[in-house]
């Protein structure tokens, strides 16, 4: 943990890690994977044309973007080198991978859209109070059975 903390602190001196006392509750997957509609949430800072890019300033950015499954994606994130993600978005936003798994019958279907956040969020309060509930509501509206969360 110390190494990870120091790595991030080099780029963002004001960052403080959140710490939970108990794990998040676990909701069981109520069907087999081959029947499940799978949603995707990535913290890679992905956004598409017409959407505002994520702020990479010290104060972070707790907003989110809904990203269509087949739309070219851009990335803004201060905590990793985004050049590889531009070359192959699948490394952090596996939309084609999940679509292929749906076509093969490994999963039942993909959600109609993916969601992206920018993972550098020094103050978790807006994330927990506003962004999290809003993203959850969107995923529930999309009738998602299982959410895959992918960091960058």
């Amino acid at each position, binding site marked *: *943990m110390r190494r990870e903390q*120091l*790595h991030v602190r080099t780029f963002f001196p004001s960052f403080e890690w959140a710490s939970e006392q108990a794990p998040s509750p*676990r909701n*069981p997957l109520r069907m087999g994977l081959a029947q499940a509609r799978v949603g995707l949430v990535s913290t890679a800072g992905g956004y598409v044309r017409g959407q505002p890019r994520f702020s990479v300033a010290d104060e972070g950015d707790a907003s989110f973007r809904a990203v269509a499954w087949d739309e070219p994606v851009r990335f803004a994130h201060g905590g990793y080198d985004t050049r590889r993600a531009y070359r192959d978005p699948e*490394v952090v936003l596996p939309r084609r991978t999940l679509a292929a798994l749906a076509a093969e019958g490994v999963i039942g279907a993909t959600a109609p859209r993916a969601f992206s956040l920018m993972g550098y969020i020094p103050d978790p309060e807006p994330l927990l109070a506003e962004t999290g509930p809003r993203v959850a509501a969107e995923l529930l509206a999309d009738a998602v059975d299982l959410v895959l969360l992918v960091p960058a």
Partner: protein
Amino acid sequence: MLDEHGLATVSITQVREVAAQLLPSLACLVETPFGLTLGAVGDHDAHARIVVRTLREAERPHPPGTIVDLGERWTLDDERERQLAVEDLPPDA
């Protein structure tokens, strides 16, 4: 964050200690560099393998807070080590 709203989730994590501190409901550990979470650019077999193995864990009855080590290790170069290298950081970090 999403589990409290009734959603079933499974997370990928790249650093065990981070997952142990944030305590997601179910995490799968892959030791890849930041920015290459699912593997190298163009390595779609690796991307699919990690995604499938992660999703499969969601079918299993793990207790909340479980971290499953998928055994996926980055071997192409030392980028991950360099990203996490304390000795490369400034002394006041």
